[in-house]
């Protein structure tokens, strides 16, 4: 077990290294291949009246004039040892893992990521709890009451949930619940400014529900399909024939067997969201990692985008590892070696 975890962590480390190299190349090398010079790239980060000399100064300052492997080496080194930055009158040190400096705001990326991570975690974890409970419960009930009104209604709502984009449901729910009824917090309310858990939850309840609505729909359909298949298995019939209570049959033998694919998807979904729920954060103006990535993209601020990419990759890789470990708990047939 321990050897398995160590081996997986090593693989995860290699994977993150590859992801960082590929992402860095996409952002900094591909434009050069397309014919952009170092000054062309630097021209994005100066005011509109900047002359050639100033643009070149910025190209040198941002390191664009160095070979790409030197640029990547500097970036990678910054992740392990931190990096220094000239602010003008002084030089400031950004401790590891620095993830570079924003080309626009000239701030180190890591403190921004650290600062925004709690918002994204609050959003992702809260919504995940909601969608997991709502989605799995709805799926189980639908499967057990197959063909009933509840089943049809639940699957109809689920279809709507999967179909409606968050920027639609989000803005609609804000208009109704925040601005017309004043029940929920307006867009842009930062949950981390809350002074107590109630305010925190109040700021997040609408984003949670909106995000969970989308995912719960998919989970309900997935759970229903899994449960329908499992409940027709021979061992379920055997369990019932042995006289086990229906509750035990459903939850211990039926649901547990159906959980494996749900667990896989859940791990990846949660990992991805922890790297930034871009649409939800943008719609509700939540200052999380997803919004940070959007700001970076809008301004061609590549270090920001790269930083979020790395955090997202880290969470997905870790979530994948945790899911693999949980397989052994959920499904006794799985053994980790």
């Amino acid at each position, binding site marked *: 077990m321990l050897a398995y975890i160590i081996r997986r962590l090593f693989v995860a480390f290699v994977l993150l290294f590859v992801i960082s190299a590929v992402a860095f190349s996409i952002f900094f090398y591909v434009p050069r291949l397309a014919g*952009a*010079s170092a*000054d*062309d790239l630097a*021209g*994005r*980060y*100066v*005011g*509109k*009246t*900047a*002359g*050639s000399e*100033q*643009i070149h*100064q*910025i190209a040198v*300052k941002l390191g664009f004039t160095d070979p790409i492997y030197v640029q990547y080496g500097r970036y990678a080194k910054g992740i392990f040892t931190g990096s220094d*930055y*000239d*602010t*003008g*009158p*002084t030089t*400031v040190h950004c401790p590891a893992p620095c993830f570079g400096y924003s080309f*626009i*705001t*000239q*701030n180190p990326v890591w403190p*921004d990521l650290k600062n925004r991570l709690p918002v994204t975690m609050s959003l992702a974890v809260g919504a995940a709890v909601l969608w997991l409970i709502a989605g799995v419960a709805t799926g189980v009930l639908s499967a057990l009451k197959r063909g009933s009104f509840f089943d049809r209604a639940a699957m109809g709502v689920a279809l709507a949930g999967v179909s409606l984009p968050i920027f639609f449901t989000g*803005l609609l729910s*804000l*208009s109704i619940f*925040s*601005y*017309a009824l004043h029940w929920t917090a*307006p*867009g*842009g309310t*930062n949950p981390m400014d809350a002074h107590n858990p109630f305010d925190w939850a109040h700021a997040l309840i609408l984003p949670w529900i909106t995000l969970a609505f989308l995912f719960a729909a998919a989970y309900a359909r997935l759970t229903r399909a899994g449960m329908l298949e499992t409940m027709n298995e021979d061992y379920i019939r055997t369990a019932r024939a042995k006289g086990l209570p229906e509750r035990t049959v459903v939850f211990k033998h039926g649901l547990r067997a159906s959980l494996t694919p749900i667990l896989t998807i859940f791990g990846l979904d949660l990992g991805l969201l922890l790297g930034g729920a871009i649409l939800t954060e*943008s*719609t*509700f*103006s939540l*200052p999380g990692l997803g*919004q*940070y990535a959007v*700001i970076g993209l*809008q*301004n*061609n601020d590549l270090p920001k985008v790269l930083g979020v990419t790395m955090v997202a990759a880290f969470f997905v890789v870790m979530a994948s590892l945790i899911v693999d470990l949980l397989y052994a708990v959920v499904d006794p047939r799985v053994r980790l070696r």
Partner: protein
Amino acid sequence: MTACNSKSKTKDTASSTSSAAATSAASSAAASSPAATGGASSSPAAESSSPAPGGTATAEFNAADGKVFKETSDKGGTLRYANSGDWDSLDPADTYYGYSWNFIRNYGRQLVVFKAAPGAAGAELVPDLAETLGKPSADAKTWTYKLRAGVKFEDGTPITSKDVKYGVERALDKEAFPNGPTYFNDFLDLQGYKGPYKDKGKDNKSIETPDDQTIVFHLKTAFAGMDYFAQLPSTIPVPAAKDTGAKYKEHVISSGPYKFSTNNLGKNFELVRNENYDPATDPDSGRKPLADKITVALNVNSDDIDNRLQSGDLDIAVEGTGVGPAAQGKIIGDPKLKANADSAAIARLWYTGLNKDVAPLDNEHCRKAILIGVDHTGYQRAYGGAIGGDIATNMLPPQIPGAKVIDLYEAGTKPEGDPDKAKEELKACGKDGGFSTNISYRAERPKEKATAEALQQSLSKIGIKLTLKPFPAADYYKLYAGKPDYAKTNGLGMIVAGWAADWPDGFGFLQQISDSRVIRATGGNTNIGIRLPAVDALFDKALAETDKTKREAIWADIDKTIMESSLALPGLWAKGLLYRNENLTNAFVNVGFGMYDYAAIGTSKK
């Protein structure tokens, strides 16, 4: 960059195509709003005072355009701003957004400033930190400003000319402050001086401070419009001891009526009254610090901003570019909502460059065929109709002092184009049956795409076939349309573009798009192909002309020369639909910025 807004100030600027061209009669009267009040005290809420002559307290369409809506001196409450993006920088040395220059007057005082007043008065420069406007030498190369006595930083330290000098000098360092304008870098006689960080301890002879109240600028070339440079945010004083370079934006030391109480970069910031601001030292700017507190939320969803403005949950969309398409339709269609809106003219031109590097547009007759044959109403529809702007006959927007209507191609009288006359030009060009060329636009901008399609459709009627070429907005000028070699090699005959003035003046509007000497072979050009020696010579003449009226006449001459060259197809003089939240008091559109004046606006919500 900054935008401006004023309805026609002179007969010359009254375009026949302008649907709202005659609203400024009341402007001048309303312009004389009471001098700034402010300070630390705040009175309880009260009913708004009666509006001044020309002002109004009745909610109606354009009630705050050219006049003051709910004029008052009542203080109190919190003004809530939101920005759909991030602020470029709060540092006076590093900001270049128009709304930022509008807002910065709340926490900084430049040497001179555009007056906080409605109508044409908003384009007038008045002394702020300085006692008077600049006093030039005979050759307009040396400019002297005398500072007012008794002005203090937020910590109570008196502001001296050395603080202003330091503010300007640090802004010269474009490695530390890459975003800000480069006018001082370009015009000061720096003799190699690179700013206080790189040349620490070195004397900068281009700025002298003979005493604590006097600052003298030495330019390397004559520039009669130096006061426009003196209104740049980089003339806001910065105490050298508190300067932290690129990190100064985290806590800018205030010299204005408000100071920062919190600042979470990328998220939000808050301003409260600066108890060391003395309104007695600010008699000319028109500032009216009414609210007790100002909050600004950053990176807020733009549709959400529009919804919150209408629900009263938010007071001002700080970018001032107008509501989005969804809200625009709703507001225009609902008389009650429309009564709370202002269609503000902005000193921005939507236009299309005609690239003479690409044949057959090297022939002026082929270019003239386009200018005469195009359907200008299609251009206007691409921007949402009249609400998006007025059909432009020439380059200079009407609110720029000196602007004249120059309708050489009858855009005003025949807005749908004159196909017969256009065909004659095609004949003269040797292209009887028409010709083909490419038209570029920014892919992420649906209105520019619609423009390209509208031009494609209307010009096809005279046999000119356009192929649409979208490019990424972020690199449009840097790598594609603004890079002469690329544009030529790839046959970009027509280049859809837009331009807003750095300040409401002919130089601020025209220089970066029509002086050929700003064109760089490396790209990043906003001058997309106007290379006319006559225009360059006129710029030189204007820079040395100290008589304002004569100088303004030269801007119109430049405009006319450009139009005669047929190197640009003017599309629209832009407008933005601003939503005026019911809480707002003392609201008016400032000509200098083309949005509500953020140094004078207040709220009735206490």
